[in-house]
């Protein structure tokens, strides 16, 4: 998805993992994904740089659709669609 398209996405669930280091955001994502239905969108807020590599790889393995990343000043917003 392009940045413009991502900006229009509204997540069904947002999980705020800012202020936690590896593997905090990953564990938060794992927990949150259980709370949403297949096809719904999860947004993860993370201030951990490594998360930007970790979440796409995690999505590959779990077969979720990774939609992309929006950068904010001090954190990133990561979007994915549950498989």
């Amino acid at each position: 998805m392009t940045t413009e398209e991502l900006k229009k996405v509204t997540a069904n669930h947002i999980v705020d993992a800012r202020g936690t280091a590896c593997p905090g955001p990953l564990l938060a994502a794992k927990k949150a994904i259980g709370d949403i239905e297949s096809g719904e969108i999860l947004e993860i807020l993370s201030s951990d740089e490594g998360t930007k590599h970790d979440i796409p790889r995690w999505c590959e393995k779990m077969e979720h659709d990774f939609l992309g990343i929006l950068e904010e000043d001090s954190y990133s917003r990561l979007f994915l669609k549950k498989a």
Partner: protein
Amino acid sequence: MSTEIENQILELQKKVGKLEKGTKDQLSMVVFSGDLDKILAAMIIATGAVAYDMKVKLFFTFWAISSLRDPKKNVSGKNFISKMFGVMLPKGRNKIKLSKMNMGGMGTAMIKGLMKKHNVASLDDMFKIAGELGVEINICEMSMNLMGFKAEEMIDYPHMNICGVATFLADASESKVQLFI
């Protein structure tokens, strides 16, 4: 002809059965070192693996067992050497030291400060999370006995067993990932 096909199907079924019983999405890790940095690495990998939907089995042996001691628990009936070991080895995860740059405890204190600053979960948190996520901790009975530790002085952890090397090998042989730390 049809019996030949039937036989082939049977053979395939057997092979598929073996594959299914083969490697699982599982991580088996030998946790051998009792150093703060290495235990921390082990716990980060273990909890991360759960997020990857892997079953996680940790086999704590030798020096690592010290990190599982509960500082609040005291057991009686130890002989002199066991008591000596008990005094000389760290009593619990908050007493273990860095493998490098400990500098009489200064390095360890500094790393703990840095961990807080960088929002890295403490060992207390890591063990709590691991317990909630179902990470299994197996303690090697032989090294526990060797060091004079007793099962009663270990921490309260929801998925803890005392076992031998065969349990580790059985777990490891069906795990996709095996590590030694």
